[in-house]
Each structure stands twice: as structure tokens, then as C-alpha cells.
């Protein structure tokens, strides 16, 4: 998970100085700016941060699913291949097969006009060239593996006939059916109840154990991160604020934003006490503040913050982009 660790044997995914700029009516919007991290097989990296900080855009950039209005800079390499240089055909071969994604909204991410089984089978037909029956058979097996009771019947049902948890399982089945080596899960449980969330997360953990799939887990729930990630990338306003092994981050968050984020979570505060509330709002990415983007809201900042702080290593695998860090 070290930056610049470009050993082609071990590094499955390397995101290197990724930047994404959208051409909007109001002007260019840099949604992701200079984001770097790596992901090894069998590991889970969590991407956390407030809404709008660029988590989804980063995931979509890896999947090659950004809209045409997006300009991508930097390097994305997957098992040594440059993702940004792939032709459309090569990219299609990769997506859904080797690289798969589970989306946040199980309600809308399934096509309401096709049955669950059809949607799971579709990837098989495209990537493995299976016949309709064979693909359906495999799809039903996959639905069974994600613990959908009575999978054959459910495969013939439409998304609206399934509950939210069930739909998310279908999404996961769809993503996993071609045995991807990298799974990007963009807030896979945000829309679900805690009990269902727990089921889905434990399912993902189990699948990872069995298949060795690497997972990029996008979430804003620090509890989920604590339980399920190996490493964490904290993003703020399109940039990486801190990257750390999960234990290190929770034991000793260094970036003021990470501190604020944890202090704001009722789970980490004393009942009835004050919560840390980070003043102000996330900057407008159209005109971000110069220097450190968190500076206007930071209670620890000083004059140095007018400059963009570099990512500085603190400990093994723990890096932070803050002039003030380490804070006592």
C-alpha cells in the first residue's frame, strides 16, 4: 500500500496522481485532484470522506465509466496495464469480467425491465460467451452463493419484487459472477438497514476470503471502515488527506479533517456530550481555496496552510497531507 510501490507482481491496482476534471456550464470542475493509492490482491482499501469529496468519481474513473465531459489525468494501472490507454474493446473485456463494481443504490442500479436472473446472466453471456440457458444456470448458482433463498424463483423475478437487501445481493452476484479480481463497492450498504448491512458486509468479507478478490470499499461510515477495511484513504474535497492502515487511523488520526470526522460521529463520543462539528461547509470545487483545502475550517492551521501540503509519511503505510501533523 506504499505510494509508488510499483512492483508489478504485487500491485494489483495503482492509482497514481489521478485527477478528474468535468467540463461544466459554469467552467471546469476538478472533482478529483492528485489522488494516489494502491491496492493489493486480497486486501480491502476503504475510501472515506464526506459527500461530494470525489469517492465515486475516483471509482468510476477506475471503471472507465465517467461521462464524456470528464478529463482524466494521471495514471491508472491494473496489473501493470495502463487502464487509460485501453481501447474501447479491451476495456469492455475487462469491465464486468476482471473488474467489477457494486453500486450504491440497489433500487435504481438494477434495470427494472429485466429479471434478476437475466441481469446476472448477461455478464456471463458477454464475457464467457455462454448460451442463455448455461448463463442462467450459473446465474442461479451465483444467486444461491450470495444467499438468496429460493434462487431459482428469485431469478425469474423483477427487481421491484425484491427487497432492498435482496437487490443488493443481486448486484453483488452480478459483479462477482465473472470472478473479478478487483471489486469496487461504492457505498454498497448505505441504503440498507443495519441488519441487512451487516449481512451484506459479512457476505463480502466471506467472498473475499474465498476468492482473494481485492476490494475498493467506498463508504462514509467509519464503523464499517473499522470493521472491514485493511487500509483507509481519507479524502477531502477531491484530495487525499490521509492514508493509513485501519488500526493506525483509528488509534491516531493525524489529519485535522480525519480528527473532525471521527469526533463528529456519535459512536465515538460520550452520550449526551458535544459532538465535534466542523465549522463551515465543504468548499465549492469550482473555486477551491488555495493551499490546503481544509484550512478555512481547520482549528489547527497556521500560515503554512496557504500552501498545499505534500503527502508526508509518518509511519509504515501511514501518510498525511498536513503541515501541522503530527499533532500532539
Amino acid at each position: 500500500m506504499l505510494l509508488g510501490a510499483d512492483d508489478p507482481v504485487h500491485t494489483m491496482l495503482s492509482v497514481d496522481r489521478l485527477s478528474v476534471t468535468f467540463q461544466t456550464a459554469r467552467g471546469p470542475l476538478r472533482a478529483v485532484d492528485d489522488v494516489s493509492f494502491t491496492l493489493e490482491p486480497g486486501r480491502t482499501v476503504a475510501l472515506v470522506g464526506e459527500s461530494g469529496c470525489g469517492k465515486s468519481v475516483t471509482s468510476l474513473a477506475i471503471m472507465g465509466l465517467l461521462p464524456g465531459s470528464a478529463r482524466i489525468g494521471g495514471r491508472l494501472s491494473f496489473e501493470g496495464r495502463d487502464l487509460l490507454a485501453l481501447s474501447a474493446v479491451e476495456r469492455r473485456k475487462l469491465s464486468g469480467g476482471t473488474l467489477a463494481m457494486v453500486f450504491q443504490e440497489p433500487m435504481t442500479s438494477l434495470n427494472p425491465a429485466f429479471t434478476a436472473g437475466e441481469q446476472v446472466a448477461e455478464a456471463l453471456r458477454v464475457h464467457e460467451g455462454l448460451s442463455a440457458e448455461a448463463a442462467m444456470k450459473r446465474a442461479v448458482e451465483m444467486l444461491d452463493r450470495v444467499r438468496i433463498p429460493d434462487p431459482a424463483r428469485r431469478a425469474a423475478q423483477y427487481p421491484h419484487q425484491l427487497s432492498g437487501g435482496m437487490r443488493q445481493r443481486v448486484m453483488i452476484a452480478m459483479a462477482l459472477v465473472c470472478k473479478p479480481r478487483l471489486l469496487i463497492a461504492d457505498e454498497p450498504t448505505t441504503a440498507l438497514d443495519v441488519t441487512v448491512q451487516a449481512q451484506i458486509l459479512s457476505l463480502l468479507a466471506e467472498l473475499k476470503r474465498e476468492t482473494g478478490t481485492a476490494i475498493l470499499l467506498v463508504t462514509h461510515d467509519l464503523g464499517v471502515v473499522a470493521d472491514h477495511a485493511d487500509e483507509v484513504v481519507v479524502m477531502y474535497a477531491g484530495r487525499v488527506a490521509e492514508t493509513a492502515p485501519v488500526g493506525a487511523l483509528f488509534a491516531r488520526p493525524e489529519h485535522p479533517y480525519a480528527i473532525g470526522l471521527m469526533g463528529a460521529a456519535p459512536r465515538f463520543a460520550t452520550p449526551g456530550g458535544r459532538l465535534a462539528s466542523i465549522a463551515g461547509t465543504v468548499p465549492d470545487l469550482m473555486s477551491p481555496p488555495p493551499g490546503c483545502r481544509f484550512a478555512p475550517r481547520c482549528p489547527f492551521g497556521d500560515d503554512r496552510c496557504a500552501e498545499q501540503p505534500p503527502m508526508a509519511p509518518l509511519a509504515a503505510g501511514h501518510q498525511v497531507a498536513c503541515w501541522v501533523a503530527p499533532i500532539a
Partner: protein
Amino acid sequence: MARWFLRRLGQILPTLLILSFGIFALQQLMPGDPALILAGEDRGDPEVLAQIRAELMLDRPLLEQYFHWLGRVLVGDFGFSWRIREPVSQLILSKLPVTAQLASMSFLIALVIGIPAGVLSAVWKDKPADWGINAVALFGISTPNFWLGIMMIMFFSVHLGWLPPSGYVPLWEDPVQSLATTIMPAFVLGTGVASVLMRHTRAAMLTALAQDYVRTARAKGLMERVVVARHALRNALIPVVTLGTIEFGRLLAGAVLTEQIFSIPGFGKLVVDAVFNRDYPVVQGVVLVTALIFVTLSLVADILAMLVNPRLRAA
């Protein structure tokens, strides 16, 4: 299902009753004495006019006329055309296939033009091709039918001599000739509907293409063509099917001016002539049947929507 049907039918009946009474009242309020019109240029003497009025029950109170008419309709008797003395039901039956043919052809044209155009312009949103398609579609909406009709006659019939300018040959008499006589009016009608379909398909496609499931489909590594045609279009068609059925109903309900221009002996022409000649039994009958077709088609629209939309289908 049966109960649902009954409920829907329960809604149709009051609609038809309100409608028939409304039309009856409107006829009564309309100026122009049917007896006088019937008498024609010679007018006839007052005695004859009085006789006509008595025969047609025009001298009775409105409600009596209405209930008399209603009573007859309930047993399937729409009365006689005052002007040509043919049974109204027979007139309607003989016009229905004509209008059905015209409507079907127009609708086919509308579908063949409208839906692909809508899909393409959504896919090419904000590109010149999109503008072009939209401009053509709007041309279809904004050109009065009578005008387009006359233009087509002048061009295709008079100048090029390719198509018969007007009239109608029944399909079973001479299919080729029949198509030749209906292609122009069908086109005139179809372009209007095509425009509407195109605009709605485009809107629905734009909505569909922005949906999460389209992104999911792309994430699976599907070809863009498949994503558009299978995933987006299937959903975009759901609202379009309902709309299309209603539009078809409107085509069936009579393309008044177009039939007038092309002398197509269909519903629209029948009813307009009947209004101008104050041939009330015909007006009454046609409007009733038209309305019946219309509401039936909106029922069909619901059923079709159910068929294409799994959300409605499976209870």
C-alpha cells in the same frame, strides 16, 4: 382482473353518458335548423318543414329527445342519417375500416420515423444531428395538416403524377391502389404523430440513459449499442407505449381535416359533414363510437403498459 375490468368499465359508462348528453345539448344550442338544412335550397313550404320536424322529433323537449335516443342506442339502434337516410350504424361500420386503415398506416409511419429518431437524438443530445432531428420533428408538429396535405397533392399528384390525389380504394378491392390512395394522408397524419412520439421517446431516452442501471450495464462491459437498445430503450418505451396508444386512439377518432382534404370517407369526414349538415343522429353516433374507441384504447394503453412494465405486471 375481472373486478378491475368492471371498475374500469364503470368509469367508461358515466364518461359516455356525460359525453352523449353534452353533445346532445350542444347540438340543441347550435344555430341552424336541421329541418331547414334538410329542405335544401328549395326550403320547402312551412308545412313540409313542420312535417320534417315532427318526424325527427325536433319539436319535442330536449330531454325527451335524449332519452328516446338513449333508449334506442341501448338496444343498438343509432337511428338513421337524416341526410341520406342510411342507418347510422351502417355508416359507422362502413367508415370504421377506412379510418382503421388510415390510422394504422399513419401510426406505422409514426412509429418507424418517430422512435428511431427519438432514440438517435437522445444519443446524440446537443450535437448537430440532434438539432436536425428536432427541427424536422417540430416541422411536423407545426405544419397544419391541411396545408401539408395540399402541398403533397400538388407535388406528388399534380407535378409528379405518382399518386392519386384523393379518394379511397378499399384494401380488399385493390391492395396496391388502396395503399396508393392512403399513403399521402397517412404520411400527413403520421408526421404529426411521429413528431410527438419522437419528442417523447427522446425525453424518455434521456431519462433512461441517465439512470443508474445504464451505468450498471456499462460496468458489465456491454457494447454501447446494447446498452442503448436493450437497457435504455426497453425502459424508455414504457411511457411511450401508453402515449402511443392514446395517439393511435386519436388517429382512429378521426383525422378530421386530413380526411376532408383527401376525400377519405372515414370517421372524421363523416362527422364534420354531419355537423355542417346538422345531421344529428350521425354526429351523435359517431361521437359516441369515437369516444368509446378512445376510452377503450386508453384501457388498452393501461393493459399494454402493464405488459411492458414489469412493475405493473406482477402483482
